[in-house]
């Protein structure tokens, strides 16, 4: 079958006045910023030829809050609440990178119990974030029920976080030198019971959505991102792993105490279509939740008693110098570049966000897709606009 569509075929001839009236042109549509399928305030200007996207241009900046400049005027402890607000669906992971970066510069030892709590929290957060992806992605593709199932499980995680930190989304829980509160043994048992339940639920969700024929038809062979393209754009996280690249910072460049845990890196295999399509990215995220469960189980076994806060000076002043530290967040690699001039506030704080790089792939992925497939592509790279715009 001829799979090429020639746009604007020469139906017009200069001599025919009738064709002058009937000339065709591309239609420009604004998708967003209040479009429910763009996950936040992303505006994509798409040019369409009937229902096929010819060109897509993302426009950013609707959620720009001047985080990097503002961080230069608050002290190192005060930056953490703002760090939360970048990727508000995975705030724990955002805090983890920042606090490790400051601790490394400060030379602070983090107590071992705090390290374990950090791992438990950030893996729970990864599950919560992927569940959110799972729910909203199903909504993008027209199924509403999975969203409610996902939120039911996510609610438990948020409840645990609310008990230990006091907030549901923007925790300010990982502090420089440790964590704010200790976890009680009751909470640890509840997490352990939750994991047992979660293991079965995940299989159920995968059967309900991932192996559904309609879902496969909508996602397999859609938005194919091959390995070269993923590398050339600097894609990270599940998007890169979905293209079949075995790269996970937790495994390859362990930070915190991730080298103590035994888990697998999930890569896309092209099970339902081409390697690197939307279904592969879905598969990577679903299976990654299982790996997170594995990590938390090991952490619950290995957790030791002790203090949760290391020795940190009352007023934090970093020595002169700079650091670049990256961590594996649910959406990809997050890098913090902190430059200090020896003062109470950062001289410069630059954030390398994975969502931003993933958004930049849209113009390359979009051409030739149907509009509905383009929605599926945006959903599958799972961007949070708070992190894109900062």
């Amino acid at each position, binding site marked *: 079958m001829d*799979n090429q569509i020639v746009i604007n075929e020469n139906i017009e001839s200069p001599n025919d006045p009738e064709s002058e009236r009937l000339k065709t042109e591309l239609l420009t549509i604004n998708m967003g910023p209040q479009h429910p399928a763009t996950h936040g305030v992303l505006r994509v200007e798409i040019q369409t030829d009937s229902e096929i996207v010819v060109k897509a241009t993302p426009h950013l900046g609707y959620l720009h809050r001047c985080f990097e400049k503002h961080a230069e005027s608050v002290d190192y402890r005060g930056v953490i*609440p703002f760090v939360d607000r970048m990727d508000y669906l995975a705030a724990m992971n955002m805090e983890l990178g920042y606090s490790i970066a400051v601790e490394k510069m400060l030379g602070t030892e983090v107590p071992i119990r705090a390290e374990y709590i950090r791992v438990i929290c950030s893996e729970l957060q990864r599950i919560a974030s992927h569940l959110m992806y799972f729910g909203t992605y199903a909504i993008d593709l027209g199924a509403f029920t999975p969203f409610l199932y996902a939120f039911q499980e996510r609610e438990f995680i948020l409840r645990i976080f609310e008990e230990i930190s006091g907030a549901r989304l923007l925790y300010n829980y990982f502090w420089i030198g440790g964590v704010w509160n200790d976890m009680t043994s009751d909470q640890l048992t509840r997490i352990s019971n939750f994991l047992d339940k979660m293991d079965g639920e995940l299989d159920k969700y995968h059967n309900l959505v991932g192996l559904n024929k309609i879902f496969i038809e909508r996602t397999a062979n859609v938005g194919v991102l091959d390995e070269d393209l993923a590398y050339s754009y600097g894609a990270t996280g599940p998007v890169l792993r979905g293209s079949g690249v075995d790269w996970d910072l937790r495994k390859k460049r362990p930070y915190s105490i991730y080298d103590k845990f035994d888990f697998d890196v999930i890569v896309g295999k092209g099970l339902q279509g081409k390697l690197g399509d939307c279904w592969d990215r879905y598969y990577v995220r679903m299976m990654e939740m299982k790996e997170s469960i594995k990590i938390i189980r090991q952490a619950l076994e290995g957790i030791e008693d002790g203090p949760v806060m290391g020795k940190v000076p009352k007023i934090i002043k970093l020595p002169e110098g700079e650091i670049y530290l990256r961590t594996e967040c649910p959406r990809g690699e997050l890098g913090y570049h902190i430059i200090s001039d020896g003062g109470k506030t950062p001289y410069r704080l630059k954030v390398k966000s994975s969502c931003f790089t993933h958004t930049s792939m849209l113009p390359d992925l979009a051409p030739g897709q149907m509009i509905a497939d383009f929605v599926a592509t945006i959903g599958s790279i799972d961007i949070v606009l708070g992190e894109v715009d900062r």
Partner: protein
Amino acid sequence: MHADQDVVTQDHHEELTLKKYFNNIWVAVRSLIKGLKITSKYIYSEPTVSIEYPEVREVLPENSRSRLFNDAENCISCLQCATACPVDCIYISANKRDKEAPKIKTKDGTPIRLDLTQYTIDTALCCYCGLCTTVCPTQCLTHTTDYEYATYTLGQMKFDYLDPEIRRWRDRIVK
């Protein structure tokens, strides 16, 4: 204008044989039944999880961070909360206490050397990060679990904690 612009669609059509056609139908029906089984289980055997908010109110965990409350009698006007606040939403002013005035102490025995003349928190600016409550030396500034205080204007979100109205409200909330 776009005459020579070709766009390759991302469809990958394989030849559809009769066997594949029926196989597709079989897979679709099977996955549909599988999904319906899961959903029907939720209809009949799973308990309800939704909370109907205004009628049923969930009790928040004890250290949940909601509206701030300052117990002004125990405040020593040390300004640590205002310094720690990353959004600068706490406004404090205090005068030096007269030497002749009777000496007063807070609940935990810290002498009060300054008279508080203003303690206002703009809750519209507050980001509920909890940094101010952790630095408070006399534990007079706390997060309460009260979350129902929507107001009609932004000005009403400024709470003056020396106001007798709010001090009465304290007995209702503070643990």
